[in-house]
Structures are given as C-alpha cells and as structure tokens.
C-alpha cells in the first residue's frame, strides 16, 4: 500500500515509487503465511516424488520402480522410521520398503510417488486446459454479447447440467486407457464451464469502462482489446478459479480412478491404489493410509493456495488483523522493498 507523500515535507527526502498492481498482489500473497507455506510444501512434495522415481526415461534416486515385483519382506510392513534415537526409536531411516509392499510385493513407496506424479500431472494439465478454454469462451461471449453470447452460454449450460463426476466417468471410460496425459487433456475439455461463466461476467462489466472505449478509439483490434486491455484486468478471477479447479481436479482424478474410469493399471493413481486395496484394509492398513494421506495433503494445500490467492487479489476478502493495523499505524514510512 502506498502512503500519500507530502511534497513539501522536509523529513521525507526520498519519495517512494508507487508499486505496480502485480507487486502489490504478490506482497499481499506473501503476507499470508499459510498460503506461502502451502506453496512450498506442494512444490516440495512434487520435487520429492519426481526425483524419487524419476521422470520418463530419467531414473530417480529410489532403488525400486513402481512396476517391479520384489520378494515379500515381513508381510510387506512399512519400514519407514521417523522416531529419533534419543526418544527410543530407530532413528530416521527409510529401510527397505518405507511405505511397505502391496500383496504381490510391489514397493509401495514407489507406487505412491508415481501416484503423486500422476495426480500432479492431471491437476496441471486439466487446470491449464480448462482455464484456457474457459477464458476464450467467456471472453468472446462477454465481449461480443448478443447472439454470440447467447449461443456460447447455452452451450455452457448444456455441459454444466451434467455433474462433473458423471461426465468425468464417461470421458474416463472413453480415454482412461490411453494414459494419464490423454485423460487429463480430455477431462480439461469438459471442466471449463465455471471459469467461462465467471470470465464472461467480468468482461460484461469491464467492456463498458473508459479504457476499453479509449483503446477502441485508438483503433485497436478486437483481439487486442480482449487480450491486452480487458484480460489483464480480469486475471485475478482466472488465476483464483483455476487454482480451485486444480484442487478439485486432484479429487476428480482420484475419484475416477477409484471407480475404475481413470488411470488404469499398470500405471498408478492414488485413487486406484485405494480402490484396489480396499479389501485389505484390516490386514494391511498402510496400503490405505499412504495414498489417502497424500490425496488429502495435496488437495488441502492447493485449496489453501487458492484461498491465499483469492485474498491477495480481492482486498475485500482480506482478513482484518489487529496486529497489522497496529504495525501500519505508527510507522507510515517503513519500506518493505
């Protein structure tokens, strides 16, 4: 927040340059500790999972692959130990199979990491495709209004009538066998409706503003007005809702895999792991806990990030904090740059 600077104030020799909108939002986001920690944790989980089992042909640092069959050790019980030695534990060590083994001896750590990788892939691809399609449809509908708007919005209505899980199942049934990437792309093409409606609403109000009028008078083309003038002003809505779509994408993918319409064996999904080990719950509970914990952790963290972004982009949503009020009152001169 810039403070008003009195021009003839002798105690203020240097004037502060006004902050750009982007920096302001970024700083507001950084002030939300929970969201920042969530970003770091999500990135940490992704990097850990990817480096553990590698990406495509590049091998990771973990010794077992997610498809390898290994001999059963100790009924496949997990060997991960986090309890430090001075508390009577065995110290921090991974052991042979940190997350245990499944019924046929596959290393569960590698499988869980592969599941995280796939969840993340689906989340990003689905989020990006849904956002791009949604932004284009919403922008065109909101900018041109009239017949174009009516047609596009009726198409949106047609797709929004079908619940996400139902259309997801059908799409997954069709494309699920072709791998996680294809599945994510196709799911993305059926998840854009919410963003399209939001973006259209933003465009309908923004297109009446003076700066659009000015751009049009200056001879800017429609596409230039849409993408260079209006879209940057609507970017907050897009970023926030695409983050929230990503959080629900994780849940959608795992739910579809649980039903058998998502990622298929021998590839691994966190939902698939839970569904195929549901019956072993009483004997080998770890087969259930690890994937469950990572689904919840990923979705929860991404939701926190989305919430933090919403607060950063929309000052009305910002939480009132007495501490911040006190900090900002006595020292208007403090500079955080």
């Amino acid at each position, binding site marked *: 927040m810039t403070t008003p600077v009195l021009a003839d104030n002798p105690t203020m020799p240097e004037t502060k340059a006004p902050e750009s909108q982007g920096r302001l939002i970024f700083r507001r986001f950084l002030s939300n500790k929970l969201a920042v920690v969530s970003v770091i944790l999500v990135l940490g989980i992704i990097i850990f999972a990817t480096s553990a089992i590698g990406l495509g042909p590049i091998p990771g640092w973990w010794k077992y692959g997610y498809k390898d069959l290994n001999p059963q050790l100790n009924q496949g019980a997990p060997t991960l130990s986090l309890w430090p030695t001075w508390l009577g534990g065995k110290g921090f060590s991974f052991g042979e199979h940190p997350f245990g083994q499944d019924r046929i001896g596959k290393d569960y750590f590698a499988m869980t990491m592969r599941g995280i990788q796939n969840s993340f892939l689906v989340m990003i691809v689905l989020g990006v495709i849904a956002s791009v399609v949604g932004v284009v449809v919403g922008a065109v509908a909101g900018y041109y209004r009239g017949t174009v708007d009516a047609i596009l919005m009726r198409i949106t209505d047609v797709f929004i*009538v079908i619940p996400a*899980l139902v259309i997801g199942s059908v799409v997954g*049934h069709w494309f699920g066998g072709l791998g996680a990437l294809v599945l994510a792309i196709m799911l993305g093409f059926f998840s854009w409706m919410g963003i399209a409606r939001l973006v259209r609403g933003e465009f309908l109000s923004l297109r009446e503003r003076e700066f659009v009028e000015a751009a049009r008078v200056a001879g800017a083309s429609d596409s230039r007005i849409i993408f260079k003038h209006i879209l940057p002003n609507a970017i907050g809505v897009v970023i926030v809702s695409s983050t929230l779509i990503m959080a629900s994408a994780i849940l959608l993918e795992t739910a579809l895999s649980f039903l058998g*319409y998502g990622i298929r064996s021998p590839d691994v999904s966190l939902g698939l792991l839970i569904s195929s080990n549901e019956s072993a719950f009483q004997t080998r509970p770890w087969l259930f806990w690890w994937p469950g914990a990572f689904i*919840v952790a990923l979705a*929860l963290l991404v939701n926190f990030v989305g919430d933090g972004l919403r607060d950063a982009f929309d000052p009305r949503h910002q939480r009132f904090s007495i501490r911040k009020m006190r900090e900002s009152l006595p020292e208007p001169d403090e500079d955080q740059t």
Partner: protein
Amino acid sequence: MASFILRRLLVSVLILIAASFVMYMMVAYSSDPLQALLGSNSPNKLQLIADLSRRLQLDVPPPLRWAMWLGGVAKCVIPFANACDLGSTVSNAQVVDILPTALASTLQLVTIALVVAIFLGVTIGIVTALRQYSGLDNTVTFVSFFLYSLPSFLIAVLLKEFIAIDFNDFLRNPIIPWWVIVAIAVVAGAIWQSLIGGDGRRRLTVFGISGVATGVVLWLMSMTDWFLHPGLGPVVVVIIVVGIVVGTTALIGGLQNRRTLLTAGINGAIAIVAYFALQPLFNISSAGTLFILSLVTLGVGMLSGYLVGGYDRAQNVKVGAITAVATGAFILLDRIMQSWPTYLNDTTGRPIATVGSSTPGLSGDVWVSTLDTFTHLVLPTAALLLISFASYTRYSRAGMLEVLNQDYIRTARAKGMPERTVIVRHAFRNVLIPITTLVAFDVGALLGGAVITEKVFAIPGMGNLFNSGLSRGDLNPVMGYFVIIAAMAIIFNFLADLAYAGLDPRVRVR
C-alpha cells in the same frame, strides 16, 4: 409469472435435450455392449451377438438411435398413457422397470443428506460468523477446508471400516472408557464456552458446567447399558420438551413476548400429554398412521399459533409449528429407540450395516424397519453430506459476515432492536439468498457423489445403475440415470429461482 415459468421450462427442456445428445454420443462411441459376448465361448455366440445387436439396434448409427431413444422418452410426458420407453438393458430388462426402485433408494439417500447438510451447515456457519475469529470459528474453518479436500470415497471407506465395525464391536460390551468420557467432556466444554462467549470468568464457568454435565451423562449412559436399551424416558422427554419450548421462544420471539411463550407452551403441554396418551397407539402404528400423526402435529402447532394470535400472528404460527414438529420428533425418537433391543436381536448384535440398503428378510413393525433403514443409511449419508456440509458452512459464514456489515443492520441496531431480532429477522433471511443458489448446484454434486457412496456401500441405487451400466457399455440404463439427474438438476435450479423471488423483494419475476 406464468410466462416466466413457461419460458424457463422451455429453455430447460431444450438444454436437457442437447445435454442428452452429448451424453448419448459420448457413451455410444466410447463403449461396446458386445464386448462381453465377444469374449465368451458359448457355442451360439454369433446367434447371441446378432440377437443383441438387433434388440439394441446397434446397426443404426448413434445419432439416429438417439433420436429414436428421445422419441421413447417423449412418450413419458403423455399423462396416464404409461407409454414410457427408455429402452432395455443388455440383459433384456426394461429400464423403466428397474429405474423406480433404484430411484427410491437414491432419493432417500440424497434427500436426507441434503436436508441434514443444509440444516447443520447453515446453523454452524451462522454461529461461527457471530463468533468470528474465535477458537470455534478457526476450528470450523479448518475442518471445512479439510472436508473440502477429503475425497468422498476416502470418507466412505473410512466410515465403513472404522465407525461401522468399531461401533458394532463396542456394542458387545458397551462401557465407554473413562479417558474417552473425559476427552468428550473437555471438547464439549470447549465448544460451549466458545459459543456462549463473554469474559474469562464466564467462559470458565460455562466450560466447567457443560463439561461436567456431558461427562456425567456419558457416564450414566455407560453405566446403565444405555446403548443396549436406549430410550429417553418420561423425565428426559419432559426436560427436552421444556427446553424446546423455551429455546424456540427465546430464538424467534424473545422470552418477554408472552404470546409467543404461550403458543410454545401450549404445544409443549400437548406434546407431554401426547407422549403418555399415544404410546398404545404407537405400538400398533403403521407408516400411514405416523404420516397422519405428523400432519396433525403440524396442523395443531399452526392452529394454536393462529388462535393465540396477537400483534404478530405469523410469528406465533411459525413458533407453534416449530415447537410442535420438534417435540413430536423427539417423541418419535423415543419410541424408535424402544425398538432398538428387538432390532439388535434381529441383527445378531451387529446393527450398523456396511452393505446394501436394507436387511434382507427382515420382518418387523414400522419401528424396526425404520431402524433398519436408519442403520443402513446412516454411514452412506454421512459420507455423502460431509462435503456439502463444508460448503454450506463456508457460504453461510461468509454470507452472514457480509450481511452484518450492511447499513440496514446498523439501522436496525441503532433503532434499539435486540440483537436476536437483528440476527433472526433482518440478517438470516438475507443469508438464505446465496444459500438457495448453492442448493441448486449442490443437488447435482450430491447425485454425482452418490455414484461413489453407492459403490462403496453396495447400495442398489441410481449411482450403481450408472456405474455398472457404463462399465459394461450398457447405454440405456446410463441414459435413464442421466435423464433423472438432469431433470432433477433443472427442477432444483427452477425452485431456486422461485425461492429467490420469494426471499428477495428486489427480484421480480417477469
């Protein structure tokens, strides 16, 4: 008004038809109903394939088949003709015949989940908004975030594996360990002190009283084998009735409003008399009797409110209805609990079911069958409603906070109105406006979620119909499912629009 309804319905039906086309094409092109037959090695395989192809008209291209299917669906609209034709399944059953039983089971599940989620979610959302940034508020906010991120299949499996099996094990020897009693008492005390608020000393008192009370009640329940022979008993029923009378009056009219108190009191007295008088009738009741009784209860409540009247007759009618229905519900609850030992005996001591929607071959009166439905539905409903519950909590909390910042709330307070009136009369109604929109969306989500819950708990409902149909490539049951859920989504959207117009005088239906 009529033209608005007609226009909305027309647009909705067109959207429904277009959506059904999309769905039909996607399912038709993605799956092959002959798959199972192609893999079989029965001697008349070719014959079977030809039969099935002819019956399902697989040689007709999908767009044309869709048009024929739509023609069959259109016949459903003709009243009393009974000409509905939704096609047949691969195993040669008419979809029209299998749909109603599946629909009944799912509707039960989804309706209960929806009502409970709205009631709990809105209540908790508003309470946390009134106690913003308290410990309770932060906890609820975190819990709702957590529930948002919890996939429903995970909840369902956890409930099935933990709650059901552990509760059944617990019933074998229903003694609550002392540390569980202490933990629950502390949690209850913490919640109450956060709710009541006030300065430190008052909070401590509230914490102590509510914690000890909870602990003592739990200890008594544990000592007296309450879980094997539950029931409220006359004393507890009277206490609860008095509590409802005072609570409803305090919430809606204020205790100094004598006429409201009178209305609630009349209904409370009737309830206590009815509790003793109706027990013989309950023993021979059927579902029909209970339905009539509940209508009578509602009628008596409203009538008493109307007769007491006063300057605010509408409010008295409302108070009368709420008191009558709430007290009646507890009397029924008491009677249902009395059947618990019988039911426990019928299910060999493991009442909470994890599979199906009713115990096969169970025979009993209306109370036992109600219990049976309850024990089968309680876990799937819980699994289904948690996510909706989270969103209702968050939306109603945000809505309440926004409304409380409005000028008219300040005006109402400045006029000297008691805080209760400001919240219940001025703010609450406006909180309901965004909630209505959410309900319409939520019904679709719940119906989608039912697919997963029904799979985990093996309930033969609509979700199961869809799921098994889709995995076999069986087009017609999938489309039957789709018609029902899309129609429900449209109906609920439509109802939301009407409710909008009723709640918000600025919205005028044209």
